[in-house]
């Protein structure tokens, strides 16, 4: 894996001057992913959402690699078309370079509206890496719930109200759904652990074939925290086991990090506005349920990793 000196020597392919909020984690994802792709040429796409909107306001683009955006639910389908063109033109000898393909999508564009296109592209086996930057809500349209939004979170379409205290459902486990596709590489990473993410992007691109990485991305606006905490809150999510770092390589599960001491989930939750209403004593049961769910999922994952 490239160390920071080597990454720095490569130079940025995702530039400053974009319009993301100060402290935005999504742009950290794009920047680090392109650094990790290294000097090999890469063609990219991104679903409609914060990352795409803030980075391509005409005539300014933060992408210093070939980039295409077409719509919200079709990042995987769009890149599969680009990759098909590459396969065809390479076979015919009109393109000679060795090119990699990378698609980005938010949790809305991936867990929800783009799930079908993603599943289709993965099943077809395109040579592509799909990176879901998961900030756990539709941020670009003003913080609406998605199927990645954690239980209890207050969003503008699962608001904390007099009767209902935020989102009722637990989040969908998309990483496991992708693992069930039996593709060569699936992983979870987090903003706040650059080396874990860099390693995974490098591995995914080197493996060839379809690959999927879900990276948890703290969003200071939607989560409600001071901007300097973006990386730290990512790491803390890992330390609570809410967001384990693991990978599934050719069907083999591997845990990449086990917290020395698992932190209670409220340590993480109560640093964020979106969970603040759950501090009230009458909601203790919800916190307990959330904790239980995390512990159960962690146990399941550990079983898979020890097989």
């Amino acid at each position: 894996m490239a160390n920071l000196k080597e990454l720095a020597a490569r130079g940025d392919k995702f530039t400053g001057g974009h319009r993301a909020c100060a402290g935005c984690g999504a742009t950290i994802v794009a920047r680090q992913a392109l650094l990790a792709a290294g000097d090999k040429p890469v063609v990219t796409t991104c679903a409609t959402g914060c990352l795409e909107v803030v980075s391509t306001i005409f005539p300014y683009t933060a992408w210093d690699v070939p980039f295409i955006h077409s719509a919200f639910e079709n990042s995987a389908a769009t890149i599969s078309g680009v990759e098909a063109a590459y396969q065809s033109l390479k076979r015919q000898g009109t393109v000679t370079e060795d090119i990699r393909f990378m698609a980005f999508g938010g949790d809305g564009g991936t867990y929800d509206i783009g799930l079908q296109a993603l599943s289709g592209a993965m099943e077809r086996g395109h040579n592509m890496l799909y990176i879901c930057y998961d900030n756990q809500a539709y941020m670009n349209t003003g913080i609406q719930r998605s199927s990645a939004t954690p239980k209890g979170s207050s969003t503008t379409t699962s608001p904390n109200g007099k009767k209902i205290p935020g989102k009722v459902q637990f989040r969908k486990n998309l990483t496991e759904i992708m693992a069930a596709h039996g593709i060569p590489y699936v992983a979870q990473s987090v903003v706040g652990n650059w080396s874990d993410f860099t390693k995974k992007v490098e591995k995914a691109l080197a493996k060839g074939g379809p690959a999927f990485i879900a990276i948890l991305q703290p969003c200071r606006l939607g989560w409600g925290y001071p901007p300097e905490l973006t990386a730290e809150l990512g790491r803390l999510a890992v330390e609570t086991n809410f967001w384990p770092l693991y990978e599934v390589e050719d069907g083999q599960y591997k845990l990449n990090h086990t917290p020395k001491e698992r932190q209670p989930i409220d340590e993480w939750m109560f640093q964020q506005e979106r969970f603040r209403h759950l501090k009230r004593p009458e909601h203790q049961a919800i916190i307990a349920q959330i904790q239980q769910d995390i512990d159960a999922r962690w146990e399941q994952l550990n079983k898979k990793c020890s097989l």
Partner: protein
Amino acid sequence: MQKIILAKTGNEAMALAMKQVNPDVVAAYPITPATEIVQIFSQYVADGEVKTEFVAVESEHSAMSACIGSAAAGARTMTGTSSQGLALMYEMIYIAAGLRLPIVMADVNRALSAPINIHCDHSDTMGCRDAGWIHIFSENAQEAYDSMIQAVRIAEHQDVRLPVMVTTDGFIISHGMERIDTLPDADVQSFIGKYDPMMHLLDVKKPFTVGAINLTDYYFEHRRAMVDAQNNALKVIKEVGQEFGKKFDTNYGLIEKYQLDDAEVAIVALGSTCGTSKVVIDKLRQQGVKAGLLKVRVFRPFPTEEIARALENIRTVAVLDRSDSVGGFGGPVFTEIRSALYGSAKKPQISGVVYGLGGREIDMEQIEGLFMDLKAGKVKADAVSYLGVRE
């Protein structure tokens, strides 16, 4: 020039044209009555008869999305669909045109649900008539074949750079067997020439951004440029159609006039109905009725001036629409034609006739009846009626 005569259905003819174009990428999804196009093409791929990378996508939305990615990556790209499939693509149809990607699509016209119906009408393609695509209708399988080949040249022309859909009438043309003249592969290849994609995503040394967001400062300018491209297409379609004629004997234009110049009563139609109408006109002419037809081959760009010139001296005209603009004043062809004539000094009496929805048959008797009613002044001008529905 040597032609090969074959018996082909419309779908087979379109699939054959696609094979001879030999695109770099096809991304498509099956739907009745266009399914065969996708199936036949898959077989060409399986048999190694084309160099195409075929992407068997999981939906039409993804089909057009993949076509967009592929075309932006510099590949000659084609697809085919119909009805609900086109409707599912709707979002991406606009994007393909807005990004100025020269994708060529075969669309087999079929009614839109509900109620679900698999038969012909033009509601599907008319639904996206304002998206920026070029729309070419076919009277028969021969025209569908010829137009698919011409479409590649039109779409890729430097002054146009817009996607093109070539349509056939579902079942009537798509499944009807016809005798068609086909061209040798080499002639098709030399006619379409090599594709110059200009900027493309695989040119990794020259990174650029496709599909950027425009705020209020640039969106209007980018849409305005499409209007010029559509206007340029009026000329380009004619040039390509004439060159086709020079090389392969059949000329193509934007419209076709059949017994129109001296006609007293005329109808305007698109697609297969034109063929039926021609037979009726031949019969009526023998009886001394000055009947004529204006066939609109190209609906987008709309040949406003040519149509006005062709119709302004005719006494009575009925415009046939195989789709309706529900809640509007007549079908889309009627609306456009009436508007095209607004500036003419002399204008025909004009009425709109919506017919054939959901594959409802239109026969020679009905068309003859319509002509006779027009002649007798029994069709109310500036009104819309429904032909062939139980009222």
